[in-house]
């Protein structure tokens, strides 16, 4: 009887100690899902979803309080990736996706007020006071913040021009014989 009590007590103590150590050593910091979702989002912190940047949006998505269709610059691809990650069904018909776009400054309207490049989250606009501004296409995420900031409506979002490097065959039409 004494041996049984002693051995069970020792066992309990040892296992408790092991669990305690394991909880410290193998602790998970934060929710890994949030980080995975953040990797899918564009990361330009444009705030169009209504959350403070992509980290906020990722937390809301992970907790299920935001729809997967929240990210306008991400387009259909991001919606599909988020739906797959979170395992939810999504109706893609409501998602607007006009294909990739970039901002373009209309030089005849630009007054060089510098407001656009102060709001650009990726430093994609180049310019100085009273000089015409311009957009680095490679850095632009088409988040649209500059469009809202421009007082003369000189910035538009235009489809990315097709070049020899980016052109590819369209999907074949499904035109079957009757």
């Amino acid at each position, binding site marked *: 009887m004494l041996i049984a009590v002693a051995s069970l007590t020792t066992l309990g103590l040892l296992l408790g100690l092991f669990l305690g150590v394991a909880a410290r050593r193998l602790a998970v910091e934060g929710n890994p899902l949030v980080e995975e979702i953040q990797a899918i989002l*564009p*990361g*330009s*912190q444009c705030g169009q979803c209504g959350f403070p940047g992509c980290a906020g949006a990722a937390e809301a998505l992970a907790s299920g309080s935001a729809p997967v269709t929240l990210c306008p610059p991400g387009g259909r*691809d991001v919606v599909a990736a988020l739906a797959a990650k979170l395992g939810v069904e999504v109706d893609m018909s409501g998602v607007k996706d006009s294909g*990739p776009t970039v901002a373009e400054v209309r030089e005849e309207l630009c007054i060089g007020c510098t407001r656009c490049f102060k709001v650009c*989250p*990726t*430093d*994609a606009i180049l310019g100085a006071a009273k000089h015409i501004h311009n957009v680095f296409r*490679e*850095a*632009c*995420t088409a988040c649209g913040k500059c469009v809202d900031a421009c007082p003369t409506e000189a910035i538009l979002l235009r489809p990315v021009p*097709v*070049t*020899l490097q*980016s*052109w*590819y*065959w*369209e*999907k*074949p039409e*499904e*035109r*079957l*014989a009757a």
Partner: protein
Amino acid sequence: MKLFSRFKPQGGVHPDGRKDLSADRPIRILPMPEQLFVCLQQHVGAPASPVVQVGDRVLKGQLIAAGQGNISAPVHAPTSGRVVAVGDYPAPHPSGLPMPTITLVPDGEDCWAELDVPADPYELAPEAIAERVAAAGIVGLGGAAFPSAVKLNISRKTGVQTLIINGGECEPYLTCDDRIMRERAAEIVSGIRLIQRAVGCREALVGIEDNKPEAIAAMREAAKGSAVQVIAVPAMYPMGWDKQMTRALIGKEVPAGGRSSDIGVLVHNVATAYAVHEAVVLGRPLIARLVTVSGAAVKIPCNLEVPLGAPAQALFDYCGGYAEVPARMVMGGPMMGHEMPNPNIPVVKGTSGVLALTHKEIGQPVPSPCIRCSTCVRACPVGLLPLEMAAQIRVGDLAASVDIGLKDCIACGSCSYVCPAHIPLVHYFNYAKGELAAKERAKLKQEGTRKLAEARTERMERIAREREEAARQRAARKAAQEAAKKAAAEAAAAAQQESTPA
């Protein structure tokens, strides 16, 4: 000595060759067109950058655009004349989008620039041969247009046992490789010897399809007394695919996603070997190539030696114009070539043929549903499942098609050719490859912009922090100053009080 290959090729189809249209026409030289449109990207890799300006007079063979980066090729003036434009011109590409192009007006004198001719080309160091090949702007003339010097350098470093010279020319209609082997066999063998020396390999095999007996005879005659072996391989499409040729000649298969050099093999086209001879022995850069002009809509099909940059229309005009209005103009062969958006598209280094085809030749049947007959599976030279891949792409599941080998597809068109339901299988694969590449580019861009956004956030935080710090320091300084002033005032007041007698 091996006369016939012992190994069985995989898959493949046997389209109607139609080579009789032009096979017996000797090579003729195209008279210099009025204008040449020399594209700056006639090769795989980075486009060449122009080194001439509008108005410059250039000599035949003079460098007009230098190669950029590791994988690129320089471009030379095909004749002497004046540069009239450095700008964009419709590219020899299915999209017809503009490409940087140098427009040259020939002066009719065809005056060569000074050429660097080595005393004994066969005694040059291997590195020197590769250097000369690079400087001559030679690219794979079979159609892939990969810079040849890059292949030579990789092969020299990794060590190659077998050099395979590809004389397959399996595309229907095309006969330019057949003609070059019949008429310029000695030069090809000389080029093969130079390539062998450049990569340091002893064995050299020339594979020629058995439907070209004259070419085989001419090459055997020229190769007599050298280490070069000429081997007949069965005629089938795509025998001219380098990996199929390798399998047919030495029975080895290149691993998926690998290169020929992984199994100790280097493959070059016969026309490339000829260009290497011209470049190393005669010092002439690649400025012209043989082009087959054929198709039932062409009055007199023939094989022409064409300066690079000649518009396709000039070739058709020289061949007597059209016998009837062509239904489709194709650059390259009918299986892997692409439709020309207009006949003024210029000839580039990779152009093996220009075809004007009639309605009867192209036929545009309407696709019907797949009946899963698996004819395409038997036809695929890579051993893929075209019907499955196309079905997955059709419903948008590109990842699944990659899992079963989309990336290994060489877009040879065998599956589309045999499909009894006329499903545009290769069109699906080309679309999917393009879509995947676009996704990859978008991902890279997203990674780049994410870094930019992070850098900006960090910078904004730093500026705010510094501002706060500066404000704090200012406040502290002001407080110190005020304290000092107050102390001084108090001291002054105290002094005044002291000096004033009570």
